[in-house]
């Protein structure tokens, strides 16, 4: 199945959607299990991919390519490399687990599961697409199901949150569209091939235009990450979305921003990445490193002020994505490796957090931190898992986030010592808001209202345990993942640095 495994991963969920649409809308049970069934093959295939992926090859693997619209040189072109493999695995895994987390949905079940599968198609497609047109189609394809999933099945302010998410993301992606078209016509021969565009465009576009395009693309991706000041859609969307959708949003969609920067900004416009931007510093310094650090601090400070547990987790996502930005801006082997590993780790950890928030919300029907207390004595298992997830989010040694954050900070230190100090100190803030929340909710006097609160059930545990296992495993032994991604990332790193000759002053000074 080597050559079309990726296409199968993309389109099996779509086929599942079609099947679900044909089922009678009252057959909730069948629809749910059909949803699960459609997410199993991509998961198995992603495991198969892990096994057969050759990390030493930096070129895309499992490539499938044929002409789609020959008149416009558009190809159906998919493949994975070290940058995308972990993301594909993460997507397949989280989609599978989220199907179980969605069993509680009672309203318009058919529509929910159909849209969810459409979303999975869009997500996997985005990560494996290597043709820019195809990438854009998948990128936008995610918007529609997401809009409805938040808007129909979300919380009280769901309509506002859904439209805000929609408009923000579309705003970013139309700028990307202009850049895509510009690339296409600037390249000779005209091309949408993401793997070739970098070489085709190398000397074709003047550097200042490149920087402009870089920024246009960056805005599109920054909205997805979301980087300050484009982040305001995120707390609304995450809070209003149903649990499983929050997981997908935080676990996968946010990663698309940083993935896009790596694949497109770095891959196609390497020269602009380290071009001088302002005040003697490079584009990457200002837009990735500095903004990333700001994200880390800002997200943590906001999280500390939250009363709503879900909002707290949402802001913590902003904070953690900052590490990814900082790491990838460092252009050191540790930095970029740490960044991509952090993408994976944050995906698993934040998924756990949102699932746990969902568990408590399903029972208490609110998420106010101060409304609980002493839950540890009422629901000990739940508290245990939550504690584990919180500690993982904090970056406790022995758990996965520690490795990636440490790598990021190590890598960044060599380039931006000042920023790294700030970023590292923010870990204290992270520990602060998480521990404070833990204390207020789980320790202390039990709230009498919730004495009869039901313990976490088997289905919920089933969604959490695999994630916890991964977090633990990667915390102790991250080498397998690092081996997978490292060669491709190092090559990307090199490309960018080679293209940026002569090196901008700040990177010399830092050495």
């Amino acid at each position: 199945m080597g050559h079309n495994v990726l296409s199968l991963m993309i389109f099996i969920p779509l086929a599942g959607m079609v099947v679900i649409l044909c089922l009678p809308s009252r057959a909730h049970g069948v629809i749910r299990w059909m949803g699960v069934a459609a997410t199993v093959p991509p998961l198995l295939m992603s495991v198969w991919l892990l096994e057969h992926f050759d990390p030493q090859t930096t070129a895309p693997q499992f490539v499938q390519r044929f002409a789609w619209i020959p008149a416009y040189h558009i190809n159906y072109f998919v493949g994975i490399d070290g940058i995308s493999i972990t993301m594909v695995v993460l997507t397949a895994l989280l989609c599978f687990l989220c199907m179980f987390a969605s069993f509680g949905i009672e309203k318009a079940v058919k529509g929910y599961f159909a849209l969810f599968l459409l979303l999975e198609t869009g997500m996997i497609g985005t990560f494996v697409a290597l043709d820019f047109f195809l990438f854009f189609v998948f990128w936008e394809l995610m918007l529609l199901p997401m809009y409805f999933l938040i808007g129909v099945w979300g919380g009280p302010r769901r309509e506002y949150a859904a439209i805000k998410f929609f408009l923000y993301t579309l705003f970013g992606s139309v700028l990307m569209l202009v850049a895509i078209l510009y690339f296409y016509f600037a390249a000779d021969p005209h091309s949408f091939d993401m793997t070739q565009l970098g070489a085709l465009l190398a000397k074709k576009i003047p550097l200042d235009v490149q920087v402009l395009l870089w920024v246009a693309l960056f805005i599109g991706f920054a909205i997805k990450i979301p980087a300050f000041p484009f982040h305001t859609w995120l707390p609304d969307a995450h809070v209003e979305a149903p649990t499983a959708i929050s997981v997908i949003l935080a676990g996968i969609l946010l990663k698309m921003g940083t993935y896009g920067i790596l694949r497109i900004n770095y891959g196609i416009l390497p020269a602009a990445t380290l071009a001088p931007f302002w005040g003697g510093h490079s584009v990457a310094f200002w837009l990735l490193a500095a903004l990333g650090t700001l994200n880390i601090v800002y997200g943590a400070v906001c999280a500390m002020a939250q009363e709503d547990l879900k909002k707290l987790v949402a802001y913590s996502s902003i904070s953690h994505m900052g590490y990814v930005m900082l790491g990838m801006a460092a252009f050191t082997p540790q930095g970029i490796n740490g960044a991509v590993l952090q993408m994976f780790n944050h995906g698993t950890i934040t998924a756990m957090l949102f699932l746990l928030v969902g568990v408590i919300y399903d029972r208490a029907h609110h998420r106010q931190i101060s409304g609980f207390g002493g839950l540890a004595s009422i629901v000990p298992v739940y508290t245990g898992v939550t504690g584990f997830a919180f500690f993982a989010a904090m970056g406790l040694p022995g758990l996965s986030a520690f490795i990636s954050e440490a790598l990021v900070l190590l890598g960044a230190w060599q380039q931006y010592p000042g920023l790294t100090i700030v970023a590292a100190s923010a870990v204290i803030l992270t520990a602060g808001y998480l521990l404070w929340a833990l204390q207020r909710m789980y320790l202390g006097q039990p709230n009498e209202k919730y004495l009869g609160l039901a313990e976490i059930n088997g289905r919920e545990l089933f969604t959490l345990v695999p994630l916890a296992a991964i977090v633990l495993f990667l915390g102790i032994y991250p080498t397998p993942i690092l081996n997978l991604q490292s060669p491709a990332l190092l090559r990307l790193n090199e490309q960018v640095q080679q293209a940026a000759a002569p090196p901008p002053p700040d990177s010399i000074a830092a050495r």
Partner: protein
Amino acid sequence: MDATQSLRYFGPELVLTAAIMAVLALDLGLTARGIERSRWPGIVALAGAAAAIGSAVRLLRVPAREWLFGRMLVFDGFSVYFKVLLGLALLAAVWMSLGSREVRGQPNEGEYFTLLLSSGLAMLLMAAAANLLMAYLSLEFASLTSYVLTGFLRHNRRSAEAALKYLIYGGVASGAMIYGMSWIFGLTGSMDYAGIAAGIAQLDDPSRGAFFLALVLVLAGFGYKVASVPFHMWAPDVYTGAPIPVTAFLAVGSKAAGFAMLLRFFHFGVGAAGPVGAVTRVPLLQLGTLLCAATMTLGNLAALSQQNMKRLLAYSSIAHAGYALLGFVVFADAGVQAVLFYLTVYYIMNLGAFWVVMLIANATGHEDLPSYRGLAWRGGALPALALAIFLFSLAGLPPLAGFVGKFYVFGAGVERGLIALVVVGVLNSVVSLYYYVRVVKTMFLDEPRAEDAPVHFALNDLAAVGLLSAATLVLGIRFDWLLARVETARRIFAG
């Protein structure tokens, strides 16, 4: 080519003329026998439109490029493409009328279909006119029939008011246009486009100002037909007041015919694509850019606050005229091709949207947004889904046809280096998403209230809508065949 030889290439128009006469005679016969509310005039009109399409489709394979009727019309791939498109618009309008409560069974139904077919005939002539005389005559013909069709709803004050507004704006615009044409004749000494192009090539420098003024005046007429700013003011009232099938026909047919005239006049008569000195030295590109940006922006901003679906779609159609104008501003074959593609896609999705609006108006008696509340949850799931597809396509989201249309138009703009205009265009699509989504939100996200009655839709009413939404989906993914079609149609006959 003289008149008798030309008839070979004049099939669609002849068929339509015959159909007009047939409907008229049939209606007369029915009235004489005292038969009221017969379905037959409509069915004959439908058959006439279908036959006209058939005749046009046969002409698609004819590679000839000729003058017809002694330099009045031309025959080329461009005109035939438009004839097929306009024929389809006519067919759809007749089909819609047969299912519309505003038209079916009303008095003067026979005359209605006669006028509708006449309007179609006028638009076919517009697509082929390459002579100022025919251009003006066909445009006025189309306008005249449209005024009456707009005012067809006798019991509706809005309809009468809309017709009057349409008439007055139309009078002013076509007055300006014919005055501009007289200047062009005065400057070039010719009425057919080939002669005009030759005359313009020899214009001396001092005449440039007059030439530019004449172009501005002519643009007023074309701008009025395609509903471009600043000649768009009639559109919201007319779209709201007219019966929905007429609105749909005006939105897709009239606009397409206007674009056909616009493109032919500038690419052939003015010779925008050729190396004509006089054109490059007048600020035509700047004027076009300004009109295009203003049309997109005003249309979208005004649509944001609309509560009536027809009015919302009216403003949206103004905005879409702006997107299509972007292809015009490119002033090259690539732009023509993009406009052709865009208009085709626009035909499908906009027609679909109007069709659903009509079905909902038939079922609920309302066209305003609140009557769409929770439609998906009270029996209208299928029409709501179809409308959502059309609206998202209009907003330009992949993988729907509207995205490809916009992609293509914006691509032509980027290729030409009109980056700023393209950026304005893409930002406008973000703005447009807001009001399209507002409709979707009302249908899907809002819960129906107690006073919202359940609605029922017969499956056979939904057939056309289903067809159009399937086309919207398929064209978003497989559009190479249409690309090939517009590739052959884009080369406008130039003497």
